[in-house]
């Protein structure tokens, strides 16, 4: 089972091609406000995480997620 840091590192890598503004990626980087992901790109990003870690991420968690760190925490919480 992956830990918080592993999720974080994977997310930094997966966000690379989507990071068109080349903002610095940290735990506090906002997926929409800073990186500028569209709703479609958010879902594509989520699918990458799901496929890599062989998990399903419920849509229910997304309203509470703004930053990379928040998403990593939520995903870690799905797999205690």
């Amino acid at each position, binding site marked *: 089972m992956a830990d918080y840091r592993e999720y974080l590192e994977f997310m930094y890598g997966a966000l690379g091609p989507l990071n068109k503004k080349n903002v610095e990626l940290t735990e506090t980087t906002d997926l929409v406000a800073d990186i500028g992901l569209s709703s479609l790109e958010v879902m594509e990003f989520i699918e990458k995480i799901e496929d890599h870690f062989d998990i399903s991420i419920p*849509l229910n968690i997304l309203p509470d997620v703004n930053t990379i760190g928040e998403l990593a925490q939520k995903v870690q919480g799905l797999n205690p």
Partner: protein
Amino acid sequence: MLFDKFQEMADFQAELAGKHVKPFGAVTEELLTATTGMVQGKQVILAGTNNYLGLSYDQRCIEAAEAALKKWGTGTTGSRLANGSFAEHQALEAEMADFYGVDHAICFSTGYAATMGMTATLAGPGDVILLDGDSHSSIYSGVKLSGAEVIRFKHSDPDDLAKRLRRLGDRTGNTLIIAEGIYSMLGDVAPLQEIAAIKREYGGYLMIDEAHSMGVMGETGRGAAQAAGIEDDVDFFAGTFSKSLGGIGGFCTSRHPELEVIRFCIRAYIFTASSTPSVVASTREALRIIRAEPELRDKLWNNANRLYAGLENLGLTLGPQVSPVVAVQLADRSQAIDCWQALLNAGVYVNMVVPPATPSTNFLLRNSVSAAHTTEQIDQIIGAYAGLLDSGLLNPDQAA
């Protein structure tokens, strides 16, 4: 500010107004036939209506509605659970159940209420909903209200569905899988045989939304599940009366007797007024016609094949397969606006659809075919698209 979130839409509407184009909420000023009307003062072929069998303007349905109007009045003034259950409603439910070869049916005031209400109610906290990523807005609204854990599977991707069911382990017994028959934007048909096989392997309950496929597909018109031969695997059929049946309302049918108890738990059924009896009567007549006149479906598919082939021959980028929904994919919003208005000027009304109502980032001109379209009308629609190419508004090379 409360209204800030609407600014993007305000900008879009301003762009449309600047071009004097009104693709959303275009007014049909007069209806001439099932497939022709007056829009912006001009007689046009209606090719964006979902009136798949042309029954909204069928004289027999009109007469049934007129008789019910005189017998029952204009409305029920109440919910099905209060004073709003008339004999017409019960008769329609019995006929819908019989049509689907099951014992149970619920009728709703709209199709949106049917799919939203059923998805919001069937699964609850502790349950799981697995829905196709391209599901209709009403389904997304319903699953959000359900309190269940909501997981998307990739659109019409049986392998992705299987993967997600496997991940659920022993929770599949509490899982509702949701797919549609024909998807409304691109007209593609769900791979229901594969989805049903996966459900058999992993378990769960399966709901199919036949909104755009009921009356359109299957040996007796029950929809995509019937066409795929997997009806025994379907736990709940949902759909609408507003498309092939030409009225308004929605339904859910099921072989599960529990549907009769679920009826008393669906907020979208309990807390809204029931359908007006005249609409129910026209729907009953339209259902009778669907059952008695399968040749309507043959005419519909002949027209769909003709339109799809004609537009394909022009080099346009279309949805992946022939169906009564024929979607032309465009490069961007500006092109969609210009082409939509040019088609209207050429005497053809279609639907313009833009994200987020479309899958992915597609900009679409969505044509819906009717059995009531004449061959000449289908050819005129194709001719109008050819005119877009001739004028340079549309170029096959720049299409998505």
